[in-house]
């Protein structure tokens, strides 16, 4: 029995883009990065949050009065939730007559998470799939994540982790022992640009990457290709050089998309990428070519 809890914002079955075979992806809530293009804004804050649907709201203001933390305020006939102040009392849910609020995030025990992902074990076995832990940033909840990974090992399930790698090297290295595949995000090769786009620099990330290579882990680097941030051919050269130096051979490109746009409104968060055009593989053929020319195995 393991009653330790992890804060998740989703468990997604039949994931086919996060590692080999058919997988279940476990999304951990809370992330040290603040990427402008983040398509899961609900993944960022490491606590339970409320989201608010303006279409359902009748502006009765009951939630404003009802919030014990004063996290909800009125602005121009609409309301604004201060995510940082919200403590997750859920009073707004009870006050709201039109069900305009919903909860983002749930604490789940290791047992519950493991039993949920084991439900699809037949599919993992048949397809060569398994479980992928992702976020947010799973390393922020490394201890409980390791508990989950140990349980999965007992059932012989393939374990992948997708991470920004932004964690203390000690934490990271300990974590490495429990995984079969590392999907390592790299947002930018340049420390200054990295900080611009994500709020943190990439020093520690690159160090952890090297450590993982040294350990002989199977690694796929994943690059979100973001317009006007890292989508020039020069950037492709920069990434290729960086990865070759570290010794990573496999790269997945993730073209920028707008699936997350609506979520920003629900969470009363500012979205800097509004109306930026989505990218598709066919827009990035030359970009991909640069990686391939540099000897990397690069796919979408």
């Amino acid at each position, binding site marked *: 029995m393991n009653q330790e809890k992890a804060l998740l914002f989703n468990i*997604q*079955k*039949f994931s*086919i883009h996060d590692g080999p*075979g*058919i997988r279940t992806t476990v999304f951990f809530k809370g992330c040290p990065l603040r990427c402008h293009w983040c398509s899961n804004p609900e993944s960022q804050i490491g606590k339970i949050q409320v989201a608010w649907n303006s279409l359902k709201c009748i502006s009765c203001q009951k939630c404003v009065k009802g919030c014990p933390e004063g996290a909800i305020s009125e602005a121009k006939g609409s309301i604004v939730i201060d995510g940082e102040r919200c403590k997750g009392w859920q009073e707004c849910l009870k006050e709201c007559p039109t*069900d305009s609020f919903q909860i983002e995030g749930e604490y789940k025990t290791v047992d519950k998470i493991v039993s949920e992902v084991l*439900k*699809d074990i*037949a*599919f993992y*076995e*048949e*397809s*060569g*799939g398994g479980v992928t832990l992702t976020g947010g940033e799973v390393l922020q909840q490394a201890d409980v994540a390791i508990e989950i990974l140990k349980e999965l090992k007992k059932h012989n399930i393939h374990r992948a982790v997708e991470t920004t790698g932004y964690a203390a090297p000690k934490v990271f290295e300990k974590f490495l022992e429990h995984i079969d595949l590392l999907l390592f995000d790299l947002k930018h090769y340049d420390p200054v640009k990295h900080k611009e786009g994500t709020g943190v620099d990439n020093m520690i990330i690159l160090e952890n990457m090297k450590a993982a290579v040294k350990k002989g882990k199977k690694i796929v680097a994943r690059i979100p290709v973001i317009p006007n941030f890292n989508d020039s051919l020069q950037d492709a050269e920069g990434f290729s050089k960086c990865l070759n130096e570290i010794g990573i051979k496999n790269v997945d490109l993730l073209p920028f998309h707008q699936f997350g746009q609506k979520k920003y409104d629900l969470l009363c968060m500012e979205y800097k990428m509004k109306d930026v055009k989505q990218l598709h593989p066919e827009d990035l053929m030359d970009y991909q070519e640069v990686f391939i020319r540099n000897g990397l195995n690069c796919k979408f």
Partner: protein
Amino acid sequence: MSEYFGLLTKRMNQFREEVLTAKPKVCAERAVYTTESYKEHFDKPIVLRRAYMLENILKKMSIFIEEDTLIVGNQATENRSAPIFPEYAMDWVVKELDEFEKRNGDIFYITEDTKQQLRDIAPFWEHNTTKERGLAAIPPASKVFYDLGIIKAEGNITSGDAHIAVDYGKVMKDGLKDYKKRTLAVMDSLDLTDFKNLKKLYFYQSIIIVIDAVTAFAKRYSDLATSMAEKEKNPVRAVELREIASILTKVPYEPADSFYEAIQSMWLVQLVLQIESNGHSLSYGRMDQFLYPYYKKDIDAGVITEESAVELLTNLWIKTMTINKIRSWAHTQFSAGSPLYQNVTIGGQTVDKKNAVNPLSYLILRSVAQTKLPQPNLTVRYHAGLDDRFMKECVEVIKEGFGMPAFNSDEIIIPSFIEKGIKEEDAYNYSAIGCVEVAVPGKWGYRCTGMSFLNFPKSLLITMNDGVDPKSGVKIAEGVGHFKDMENFEDLQKAWDVLIRDFTRHSVIIENACDMVLEADVPDVLCSALSEDCIGRGKTLKEGGAIYDFISGLQVGIANLADSLAAIKKCVYEEKRISRDELWNALINNFEGQDGERIQNMLLAAPKYGNDDDYVDLLVTEAYNSYIDEVVKYPNTRFGRGPVGGTRYAGTSSISANVGQGLGTMATPDGRKAFTPLAEGCSPTHAMDKNGPTSVFKTVSKLPTKDITGGVLLNQKVTPQVLENDDAKMKLIAMLRTFFNKLKGFHVQYNVVSRDTLIDAQNHPEKHRDLIVRVAGYSAFFNVLSKTTQDDIIKRTEHVL
């Protein structure tokens, strides 16, 4: 049209266009010739009367040979026109004569002349149809279930049976002459002093009449082709017409010697069976198996090429599409899109348990993908040994987005057949019939599924209401108390067990009453002759002529029952957030009023079927088991009269009955509003499966599949983009393999089409004339479906693969 599978030949493309653009009309010829013959032979035993009827029709009906066809045989005066079968039911025909053109789906055009012809014959059929006799035969206590729409059996008494496949392999190999020879031999040896043999004599005489009639019918086409050849200016076409003429003097009476002859032989019989009776789901069986020797021989000899074989196959599919059926408006809602469900099955295993896929299996896939029509209904028999190459080819057809092929799995069907007493070699030779259901071609009686429809959610409401139908206020069963007085959830479960068993018995009574009428009134002579061992036993199918005879009805609203039970358990008994009175009143008021919506939202938030949640999944398994346990107790009307079996099992191939039955069902405790569609087959309720396809598979696999041999229908929809790359395709295949190999699933089919396309098609039907969707176990043109059915499809969850 497909890039992967190539284009139709020019003439097949023209022929397809012609059939697609043909206006569906009502044709009176068959009705007129049937009436004429019935009058003339009114003194004869019924089986002979039926034989003379078929003879008269085949002799007099209009025939034609289309400009672009290589295969001949037409069902009505024009392609896509629907004949009338007055012996089954005539009242709705006359009543709806002026309404056919005004329907909001499945429209049929009719001329004033045709209307008059039908009005003229109508008096003869008053109190003289299977519908009227059927209704008169159902005892009052059961008839109330029929009248209130709790048990639907309209299709059983207003049209023929079918849901059967004859053994086409035998027909083409031996020719009808062999059947005639066998019939004559047994007929000669009959001792007529035994009165039972008199009945056999009439049957045998009938078989001779119909075989000769079919042969003469073929000769009519031969003569027509000859005379057309004489007038034909195009020398190439003239040669073709002469070949047609020569083939039709030979088959189906004589054995076929070539691939071409074999197909023509099969088509003519397939056609005549659909003139003899308008029962639908008349299926071809395992076509890649029985046609393969002819294909192999001709391709080896250089008589045909792959291309010419594919052209013939596409020709056959277009011909298959020319068949049409008109149903009453009430019945149409249960069978939207006027489907005929003529099934072709490929793949699977041979009787010696080897992978049965052969080059012809691939060509059938290719030809079906090229024609891209809702007929035939293509089924692939899955088994663990089916290789990835073939699976990928199937996925390529799925990508075409017309809902084919469907998969049925050997891994569950064969063992459950063997368990029921089917010989191993026959079990390995099963084929799909219609859509989901399965039987052994040429050895199985009618309706392995397709008996009555039992509305589960409505049954639950009546259970909750102490045996009174809340919609009509009629007391139809002895209840065990009202829901308002049930202190525990177990009380409701017990009440369900009592009432559903009672309803099951009524469904059996209704079905048996209908079957007795059909046996007495409308024996199908040709269909019986081609099914083993009718000739040997001297019995028609309905008298017990088949080697195997298991039937099943259709239980509708599985997911609604599941979700209703779970919502009641959770919201009323466990969390006590809704009182029993509140729930009942909300249902009666259709969740209207302020409180109603709040209650509806709570019910909708309860655990839902389709998410791999034992809480709800196990509730429905238990509730369904009461039905299954009860229905197996009751033999059908052939029990002890010859066939192995003679019994019943469960089935869920609800076709579009979920829409029709929803129309008659008040609000249900799953949060469903009154009169909206129920969930189809064993698929989850619309948009309630939130955990993706693997969870749906898990949920469905918890049903007692090996006892639902009538079919466990699961429809999944995917967007086309998900199948774009090889990697994703292999994952889809791995998912199918898991469902069948490990979870022992029965059936699945994929609807690959985008939601936007469907909405656009609804608004601009003219732009999407050939858009086909799966309505349930079959495909139909989207723009002939009623708006409710269209909405129903649009609402289905799209799994993002």
